[in-house]
């Protein structure tokens, strides 16, 4: 089943990576739309209300893409990872089923109300449903993170004589220390994404002298939220996350940092290429002693390198893990720099005339998607070779009777389907952006589905 394992892994990686491009935006936008709507409710500034409506349209199409691409993930635990589902189903299905019971029903009910109900049910109901949409999408995120945190750091289980595991402590699973760090970091990433998209589109409008009033508003809100969220990614959420990795997956930390040999006064590699043959970093640029300090708050502490661990427990793809981690951290640092400069210009009232800054903000728009994806690659590649860390290897998890040919067939199908969906999404987004926040009258015709 070696082949079926590889193809099943590819299929899950592909479908989950693609899926998460959408929720990272909707979870961020849900918060921003709630902010816009709340500002409108307080001050009655119609500009904020119209902006909320405009972003609701972007949200709606993205939300549908997220829902549609999310369904295959829940199914794939059973179709492709049947052996793992048997092994750990007693635990991971708890949190997955809770997502259905608490988040999906909430989301589906209030997204419909939010998108359809403004005229019919008035502003208060509309504001309330924007709050519920925000809570629903973030609750959904919580249950998924809890599930992922459990495979990263299994807790609250007991071993059975048949080799499977069973739930032993429900609250231990829900209150896993890994969950808090990962949730804080992940949701911060979603807000960074939403804020950069809002500010980036605002910059586009101001630079092109179209819908300038709205462009300025998007910039103001996007940058205000974005500067807080970008800093939040470094501290406290990034710090807590790396603490968890250092404590529970030290071998992954060594691989992420490209630390082949254990060292006292270990430095941080900023740039360099892992050389797996010679077990070293080529062309390194290193900040001396920094890693020892970051991990142990002690400039002289010894950090365990890959050589301290048996090779069968090393992540299988160390270079990719190393690059994912470095891309995430590098981009995160750049985001902080961009947002601080932009916030300063905004505060001094210089931003709307600083065209170079608007260009930077506009061109930065795609990068949070890359950073968030790289972050998830870091988490998931770092977890290898385990499916449930320390308990169950990825190679044991695949469905025993599903052939590699069948999986390849469905993988190709997903690839084709997602290509078309991606093109449609881009076409619809370009239309919405060209259309802008004004001119609701023209879209009155088109309100059949959820996403009008």
């Amino acid at each position, binding site marked *: 089943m070696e082949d079926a394992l590889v193809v099943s892994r590819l299929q899950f990686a592909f479908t989950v990576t693609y899926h998460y491009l959408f929720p990272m935006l909707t979870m961020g936008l849900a918060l921003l739309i709630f902010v816009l709507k709340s500002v409108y409710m307080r001050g009655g500034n119609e500009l904020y209300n119209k902006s909320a409506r405009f972003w609701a349209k972007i949200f709606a199409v993205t939300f549908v893409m997220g829902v*549609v691409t999310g369904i295959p993930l829940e199914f794939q635990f*059973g179709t492709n990872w049947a052996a793992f589902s048997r092994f750990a189903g007693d635990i991971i299905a708890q949190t997955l089923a809770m997502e259905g*019971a608490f988040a999906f029903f909430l989301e589906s009910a209030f997204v419909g109300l939010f998108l359809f109900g403004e005229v019919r049910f008035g502003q208060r109901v509309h504001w309330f449903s924007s709050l519920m949409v925000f809570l629903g999408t973030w609750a959904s995120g919580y249950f998924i993170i809890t599930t992922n945190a459990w495979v990263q750091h299994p807790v609250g289980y007991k071993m059975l004589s048949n080799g499977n595991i069973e739930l032993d402590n429900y609250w231990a699973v829900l209150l896993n220390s890994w969950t808090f760090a990962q949730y804080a970091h992940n949701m911060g990433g979603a807000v960074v994404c939403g804020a950069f998209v809002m500010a980036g589109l605002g910059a586009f409008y101001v630079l092109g002298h179209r819908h300038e009033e709205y462009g300025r508003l998007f910039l103001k809100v996007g940058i205000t939220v974005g500067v807080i969220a970008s800093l939040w990614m470094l501290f406290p959420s990034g710090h807590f996350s790396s603490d968890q990795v250092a404590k529970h997956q030290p071998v992954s930390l060594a691989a992420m940092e490209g630390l082949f040999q254990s060292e006292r006064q270990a430095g941080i590699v900023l740039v360099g290429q892992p050389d797996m043959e010679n077990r070293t970093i080529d062309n390194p640029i290193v900040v001396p002693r920094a890693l020892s300090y970051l991990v142990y708050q002690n400039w002289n502490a010894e950090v365990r390198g890959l050589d301290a661990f048996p090779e069968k427990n090393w992540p299988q793809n160390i270079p990719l893990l190393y690059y994912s981690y470095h891309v995430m951290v590098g981009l995160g640092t750049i985001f902080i720099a961009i947002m601080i400069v932009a916030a300063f210009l905004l505060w001094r009232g210089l931003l709307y005339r600083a065209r170079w800054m608007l260009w930077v903000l506009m061109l930065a728009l795609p990068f949070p998607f890359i950073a968030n994806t790289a972050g998830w690659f870091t988490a998931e590649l770092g977890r290898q070779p385990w499916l449930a860390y320390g308990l169950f290897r990825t190679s044991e998890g695949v469905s025993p009777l599903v052939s590699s040919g069948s999986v390849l067939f469905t993988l190709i199908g997903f690839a084709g389907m997602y290509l078309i969906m991606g093109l*449609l999404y881009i076409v619809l987004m370009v*239309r919405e952006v060209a259309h802008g926040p004004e001119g609701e009258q023209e879209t009155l015709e088109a309100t059949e589905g959820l996403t009008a």
Partner: protein
Amino acid sequence: METIWFIFVALMIAVYVLLDGFDLGAGAIHLIAARDDRERRKIIRAIGPVWDGNEVWLIAGGGTLFFAFPVLYASSFSGFYLPLIVVLWLLMLRGLSIELRGHIADPMWASFWDAVFFLGSSLLAIFFGAALGNVVRGVPLDADGYFFQPLWTDFDPFSNTPGILDPYTVLIGLLALATLIVHGSNFIALKTDGDLNARSRKISRRFTYATVVLTVLATAFTFWVSPWMLESFNERPYGYVLPLVAIAGLAGMVLFNLRNDDRNAFLSSGAYVIGMLTSTVFGVYPKVLPAVDPANSLTIYNASASRYGMAVGLVWWSIGMVLAVVYFVVIYRLFRGKVNLEDEGY
């Protein structure tokens, strides 16, 4: 405890079919009942605010199945690998068709998505029926509790290596299609007026008769393929109430359709759907996945989660379902009444 969860999972699946059933049915009659763009928009508008919520019952039901019966989930999802993934693709395409159709006001764009909506809805109804047929007929589970079924093999329902499609499962698929067409056209009749209402009633009438015929055929075929189903009813005779609900629903479908009473016709087709599904799962109980070799069948006892897990689940599941029912009642009440294209959001 296992029995409680069996009932809960069965209930969630029944609610899914009851709710998503009418919007699948609406899709299956989309091209026939609605003749122009205006009428087609009305159909989509009728299900627009609710289809996504209806589909959540499938996702939440699937999640609950995984949680309560992890072994069943692992075996059935990997065993039905290909048809399940095809169902996923159909669900995705159909969801997109509902949402994307209105985004560009162009006749070619609309016709394309109308066709996708129609095909996706009809094929899903058939696939869901065939899936149920497979469960009733039994699947080739091995001693480890795994199986893999190709789409078709020798088309023999009594074979030791059955495929997904054989005369029996196809018959159940057609029954499901006919049933959901009636259920969907009753819903569209209820939500619309004028020509669209009249045409929906006519479609409902024709397919009601088809459903009656198919029900008789399918019932006979079921007891021929799986005679053990009858034992459940004889052991626990109170179970006969369930098929009676189905028969009453079927009678109501005919009667209220002839009287042009859309509301009661819709309730009757709902009762029929619930009656048929609950009869089937009652007959299957305590098995959850019958095997061709009866020794390998999965039952509520060898496929369920831990006692502790199921007990914890009882608490949060109850809270979650109360909330879900509240949302649904509120949303359906808010959007009640006939569809009016002028009364739009923004």
